[in-house]
Structure formats: C-alpha cells, structure tokens
C-alpha cells in the first residue's frame, strides 16, 4: 500500500501539488488522468522517490519512499524521457545494468519483450526513435517486476500496434505477477479499460478518485427543448451545455434518481450516457 499524507510539492513559488492524502491499496491498476500541468508527473516522481516532498510524507508499506532502498528497490517509475541510462549505452548494457541494480529484474522476460517489440539490442539509447525509446522503457518497466510499477505516459510516440502490445503484456504480466500499477495517460478511451480505479488530478489537486466502471455511470446527458431542459436540470450538477437552435444538451454529473427519470420520460427529454473522455473534459474545465 502506498500512502501519502499531507504531501505537498512546490517549485519555487508555484505549488505543483497541494496537500494530498492518498491511500492506494496494493494489487490494482490505477489510471492517473489530468490535463497538462495538472501535477501527474510531479505526483508520480514523488511517489517513486525521484523527488523529495516539500512537505508531508510518502510511504510504501510503511517505509518512507525518499532515499530508502527498502522502498525504492520495490518501485519502478518509467518516464517518457529515456532516463534509464546514458545516451551512449547500448540497450543490452542498460538491461545488464538493470539486472545488477534491481533485485527482482527478470532478464529472460526482458529478452522476450525485446523480441516482441523488435528492439535492436546493439543500438544505443540515443539512436532510437521516440517510439522505440518508449517501448524500451516499457520493457524495463515490466521486467523490473517492481511491486509498485508506474508508467508516466510511457507510451508516447508508440504506434497503435505497439501500444496494443504494451497493454497485452501489461495485463499478462500483471496476472502472473500481481502488483500495483499506476499509468498516467491522456489516452482515456484506449487505456481506461485497463484500470480498476482512476485518479483525476486538476491544478495540483485530486479532483476525483473512483472505480472506473462506476465513473462510467456518473455522467448523464439530457437533450430536449431549451426551456424544458433548463427546468429539468435545476438543482442538479451541470458540467457543461451545448445548444443547437432550440435544442439544448446538458451534461450532468451524478446518476439520475427514478423520479427524474420518470420526469424526463414525461417531458419527452432524451437521456443518454456520457463517455468517460467527455466526462473527463467536462470535469476538468471543459474544452477551453
């Protein structure tokens, strides 16, 4: 279990992460969503001990994460920047390095993944394409078999088939070696089926944390004549609205009770589900 208490991160005058209390029980796959600059990378970096909290604590099974080998050897954060080795190192050397530094590293599995992603072992890190570098990060991240494995947009630059391979391997290895996984992503539609829970960050705060399947029921769109819709949504949580001529569509947050459903039927209003991505857009301030 990873626990933060009053965790706060500041860069000079700007607060990247406002005080955050979070418990993430082990053995689940969490999605971390948020717009650019919402604090995703800051949060993951701090959870991994890459960065020291400005205030508050992060512990992993009770052990402080910052600079304590009992915790850090069990944590792996893969970022999109290829920071796994020197640019002049070959992939083979970096894998050998990881095997020396990581207690649980599985070199056989790493080799298997290298083949699957068709990565050239003798090439150096700096000569890889963006997508290849991301794929290599995923190889290291999965083969590290860390109890807490985090991918911070580790799929950047990967084409659709490679991403699919990533998702397949992630699930396959997660089932064989259960662990806690955090994935930060903008690919909501594509990756949300992988998650059990989502954390939505917005402007350095945790906006929402929920089972992703529950979240899929949380949005309702109401469509009908403007005046009727306005009446109907009075007192409900309105996330956004659009108008086309006399017709209005309003996106509501929170499941509708039976009374409202009956009412909607009587007034001839159309109720519809809201896709996760759309809900996310509305929750984080709309498409501004």
């Amino acid at each position: 279990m990873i626990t933060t208490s009053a965790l706060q991160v500041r860069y000079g005058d700007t607060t990247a992460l406002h005080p955050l209390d979070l418990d993430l029980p082990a053995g689940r796959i969490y999605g971390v969503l948020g717009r650019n600059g919402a604090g995703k990378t800051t949060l993951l970096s701090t959870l991994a001990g890459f960065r020291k909290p400005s205030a508050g604590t992060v512990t992993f099974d009770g052990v402080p994460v910052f600079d304590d080998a009992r915790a850090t050897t069990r944590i792996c954060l893969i970022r999109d920047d290829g920071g796994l080795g020197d640019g002049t190192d070959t992939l083979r050397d970096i894998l050998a390095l990881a095997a020396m530094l990581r207690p649980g590293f599985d070199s056989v599995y790493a080799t298997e993944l290298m083949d699957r992603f068709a990565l050239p072992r003798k090439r150096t890190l700096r000569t890889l394409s963006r997508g290849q570098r991301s794929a290599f990060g995923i190889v290291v991240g999965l083969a590290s078999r860390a109890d807490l494995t985090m991918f911070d947009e580790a799929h950047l630059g990967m084409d659709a088939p490679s991403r699919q391979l990533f998702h397949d391997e992630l699930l396959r290895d997660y089932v064989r070696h259960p662990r806690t996984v955090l994935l930060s992503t903008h690919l909501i539609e594509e990756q949300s089926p992988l998650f059990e829970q989502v954390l939505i960050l917005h402007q350095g705060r945790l906006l929402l944390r929920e089972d992703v399947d529950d979240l899929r029921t949380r949005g309702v769109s109401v469509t009908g004549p403007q005046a009727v819709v306005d009446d109907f949504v009075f007192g409900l949580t309105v996330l956004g609205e659009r108008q086309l001529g006399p017709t209005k569509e309003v996106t509501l947050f929170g499941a509708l009770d039976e009374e409202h459903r009956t009412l909607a039927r009587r007034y001839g209003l159309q109720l519809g589900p809201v896709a996760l991505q759309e809900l996310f857009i509305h929750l984080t301030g709309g498409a501004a």
Partner: protein
Amino acid sequence: MSRWPILRYLLSQHLVFLVLFVAGGCLLALLVLPVFLLFTPITMSAVDVGGQVLFWLAAGYGYGAAGLLATMVSHGRTRREFAWQYPVFQLVTAVVLAGLLTGVYAAEALLYRLAGWTRHLQDQRIFDAGDHLLIFVSYLCMLAICLATGAFVGTAFYRWEGGGVLALLPAAALLAYGGAMTGFFTLPFARLAISGAPTMLAVTVAAVAAGWALLWASVRDVSLRTRVAA
C-alpha cells in the same frame, strides 16, 4: 541479491572501460613516438608529458557523476548508496590508473635505455625518473582529487543549475593546490612546500574528503530532472 550493486556495476563496467581506454592511449602514444624521431632526437619522457592529460580526463569523467546518479535512482537505488559507493569506486579507479601509469613509466625507462635515448622529466615534477613509489603516490593523489572534484562540480550543476558556478571556487582551489602539491601543474600563487609521500597522502585524504562532502551536499536530496527528450 548481492550487496553494493552500484559499486559492482562501476567496477565491472566503468573501471574496465577506463583501464582499457588509458592503456589504449598509452599504446597509441608508443606507436606515434617514433614519428617524432624523424624530426628531433628524443630527450623528454613521453609519459610524463602525455600523462597530464589523464587528470583532465579524470575530472571530465567525474563530471558525469550526475547522469550516473540519475540512472541509478531510476533503477531503484538511493542517493545514499551512490554517495558512498561512487567514492569507493573513484578511489579504486585512482589506485588502478596510478598503478598503470607507474608501470608505463617503468616500461618507458626500459625502452629509452634500450634505444639509447635520454629521458628527462619536466622541471616541476617532485619525483625523479626512477622513484616509482613517489610517482605512484603523486598520480594517485592527483587522480583522486580530480575525480572527486569533477564529481561534485557535475552534481552541483545538476542540482543548482546556474548556481553550480559557486562549486567552481572550491574546485579551482582543490585542483590548484593538488597540482602544486603533486607537481603536475604549478601556478605562481598556489605553492605548497610539501615533501614526502606520507604528507601528500594525508593532504589528499583531507582534500578528497572535502570533495566528497560537497558531493553529498549536492546529491542528498536532489530531484531527478526530466531530461528533455529529443
């Protein structure tokens, strides 16, 4: 899992590379040497002239410590582990390279004698051509100081970015007085009247310890940067 992973990695990969690199450099010099003979008779010790390059290479290599630290942390190791295993590696490296250079001095002496060349060292050297113990200690001290200095300057720039400039002050002092002490480079204002291997070793221990203290100050709570991806 085996212990001291960072140290094991550095010794098995980096040290091997450094030794091969330096040995290769010496061999290359040996091949180039006869070319000079075409123009002028040889009177100077080649290794004594060329050996100085090593210190700048050592400082430059030490400068890469920050990148190395970032890599270690990315693979789940701690700054604490790095801060003691890396200096141990530097020490071993200094001993091995100083030994290598001393061996080259000895081999060169033999070569010159066979060829009938005269062999002078540079004036400011504190050791004589045949004093292999003092040659070893001088190289050891200067290499250790250069490696430690490079490392804390590199990590200071990583940690404080522009503010790392301040680290250049202690760095310059360490290099100037280290150079004066070992006789590898002398500046008019930096002179040390130190003689004998034991005193030199004692001063080096203090200097290197200061370098490592500064290294620790730079890395103890440093945040990993997000490297700008190309």
